[in-house]
């Protein structure tokens, strides 16, 4: 499995942006079900600020290990058994993330447009298309992401700008009627979604440079953080207290668009974001799961694993969440988000500690497969 083309910082940034921002076009986990709506936009800012050093930690670890991928780094630092365990946990994590993305977009299609269609149809078709892209490797995904991230960004900006006539900024006041405590849950929910960018530790070997890895990561976090914050501001300004009760806030925003009383209900804008954004985010996750599995199984190529993993994601997507209520809760910090955060932070801590111990024992610092080139 040889990667012959390198991924640029912009392409990496686009891939990570789509991973983070795609969910925003569906439900807003930092908003839905929260006790009050006014100060939630601050959760977007605080969540981004907290996530930035964590993402920088991932990048630093990758760079220190010669831009190797997280499975190889784990095996090198933790030994074959410990490293393989971490590797398989990552495969499971990406598989669950893929199942989550599939269920996410399918539920959105059902709730927003076609309620009578069996969910498996959407899930199977999306998995089929995304697996087809994933099978062609990270190069194609990165190039597509570079184009589609722009499209998704424009559609999100339109979603926020076009309903301007119904924006009431007073709905954002008072910011903290009950003190700072209501901010904890939405912030803690925003952070795990940024941590999904850990897939950068699989993309690292294909990067042109370590500097590019850092640039792409930081920019994607900043841009997606800004978009998240702005989206929460607009949703709260338009829907006030009922914004926390909306299943698909971005879709609801596009339903409020009225241009001159003639052009109305431009749900198409959101549906385009769903289809392209989630489709590519899913392809990225499937690619990461297949590549990591190939490493762990000692296979020369990952391609044969993509479709079976896609099928498994469909199965898990249907079986894991019995209803939308459970599914929505799984995105919050008190449920799936907490598990994600703990897993990723624990892996980062263990790998950093192992690296530190190895260096202290004289094992050398640059044990990576290749050194930094810049």
């Amino acid at each position, binding site marked *: 499995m040889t990667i012959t083309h390198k991924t640029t910082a912009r392409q990496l940034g686009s891939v990570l942006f789509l991973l983070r921002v795609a969910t925003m076009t569906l439900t807003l986990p930092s908003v839905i079900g929260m006790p009050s709506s006014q100060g939630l936009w601050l959760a977007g800012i605080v969540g981004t600020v907290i996530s930035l050093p964590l993402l920088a930690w991932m990048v630093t670890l990758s760079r220190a290990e010669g831009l190797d991928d997280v499975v190889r780094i784990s095996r090198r630092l933790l030994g074959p058994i410990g490293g393989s365990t971490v590797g398989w946990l990552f495969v499971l994590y990406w598989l669950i993330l893929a199942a989550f993305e599939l269920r996410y977009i399918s539920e959105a299609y059902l709730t927003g*447009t076609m309620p009578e269609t069996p969910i498996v*149809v959407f899930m199977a*078709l999306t998995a089929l298309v995304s697996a087809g892209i994933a099978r062609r490797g990270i190069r194609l995904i990165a190039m597509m992401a570079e184009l589609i991230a722009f499209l998704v960004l424009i559609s999100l900006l339109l979603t926020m700008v076009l309903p301007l006539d119904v924006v009431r900024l007073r*709905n954002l006041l008072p910011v903290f009627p009950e003190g700072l405590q209501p901010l904890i849950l939405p912030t803690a929910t925003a952070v795990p979604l940024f941590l999904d960018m850990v897939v950068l530790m699989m993309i690292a070997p294909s990067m042109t440079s370590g500097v590019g890895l850092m640039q792409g990561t930081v920019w994607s976090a900043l841009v997606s953080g800004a978009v998240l914050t702005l989206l929460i501001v607009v949703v709260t300004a338009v829907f006030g207290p009922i914004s926390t009760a909306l299943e698909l806030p971005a879709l609801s925003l596009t339903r409020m668009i009225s241009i001159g*009383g003639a052009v109305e*209900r431009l749900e198409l804008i959101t549906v385009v974001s769903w289809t392209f954004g989630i489709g590519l985010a899913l392809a990225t996750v499937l690619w990461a799961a297949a590549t990591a599995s190939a490493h762990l199984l000692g296979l020369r190529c990952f391609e044969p694993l993509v479709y079976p993993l896609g099928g498994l994601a469909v199965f898990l997507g249907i079986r894991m969440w019995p209803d939308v209520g459970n599914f929505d809760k799984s995105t919050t910090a008190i449920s799936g988000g907490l598990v994600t955060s703990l897993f990723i932070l624990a892996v980062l801590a263990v790998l950093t500690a192992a690296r530190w111990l190895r260096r202290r024992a004289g094992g050398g610092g640059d044990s990576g497969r290749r050194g930094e080139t810049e």
Partner: protein
Amino acid sequence: MTRKVVAIVALVLLFSLSTGCWNRREIETLGFVVAVGVDTSLGATHWESPDVDGDSMPRMQCTVQIVKPSAVVSGERSQTLERPFWAVSATGRTILECIRNLSEVSPRILYWPHNRWFLIGEEYAKGGVTRVLDLMERDQETRRRTAILVVMGGRAWDVLQTEFELERTPSEAGRGIVSNASGRFSTVAVATVNDFLVTLASEGIDPVAMCVEVIPYTFPYEITGDVVREGVKATARLSGAAVFRSDKLVGWLDGREARGYNWVVGKVKSAVLVVDAPQSSVELDPSASLIGLEIIRSKGAFRPRITDDGRRIGMEVKISAEANIADVQPYIDSYSDAELWTSLEQRLEEAIKSEAMAAIRKAQELRADIFGFGREVYRTNPRVWKQVKDQWYEIFADMEPEIEVTAKIVRSGLKVRSVKLEEMGGAGEGR
């Protein structure tokens, strides 16, 4: 070989699955709903089966107005005398049940994205409306920007039978009337389902809805002969506002009070206010002493004034307006009479203040904070709000708001001086 087989299977699957969807709807199978109304039930309609489940739950009557595409086409075929819409009712315990009951009599599937009007009969509105609005938020076909109206002294069913001159479909006519009445006269309090629900969920504010009433046409004569005339028997008028406390209708604002409401919340786009002419201008004919001032721009805002101990809460309302001299009965000379402008501005300020105060007094009388004075206290002083929240309606009712109006007359139209009648009765300059 395997890849080819996989590709062929994938293509076959894609083509077979992508040819249509489970939710496909052909246009000729759809009935386009343009308005819906909810009333208390007067009993099941004649095509409905009697209750078989013995349920004693109170029923509601839901009426939908569906466009007849064949009757609204343009060109020569538009000469048809066929009514361009069909209004049909069904009863049920929930609004969705009513709508689904309609499927037993409608040959077409009701299609909701074109619905612009949600009407509620007065009697039903008095009992609370949240129970029927949920569907408008929850369903993916309905619009949140649907206008919400309450029928003054009548039923939604009646309004949905009315017709309008100049427009074939009542939905389009209503749209034009709302646009005219709010944009040219500001005597309606425009509200959408989204506005209504956001207000209901907010602290310290009660919702308003538009007010509509049926106007019967009673011609004292009969038009006969070859001239084709459509039989418009009743039309509808939009003016004023329905005032809710929480989700229950508690009263009405008339057109002038509705404009007063719009002054306070800053929603007056344009209006005509008639004031008495200054004394110096009515020397010749005191009976023609009125001047119409056309508002061209306005702003309205308010903020609470709370004493340091938080016990006394007042409200400071600030309104500003710009107007043109638009319609003059007596003789005026705006070119040389410098006092005229100031004098008219004072009169306009008084007129605006009077309308705003009338709206506030009516809301206080109804004990419904439709302006959101309480919400403003909550926004600016959440701690004070927490203390006064439970007694807010009493505080609101006893409140003496300070209204400060700044009016500016900026233009006088295409002339600077009116026609001056000669004392001998001869005509002066032509108008």
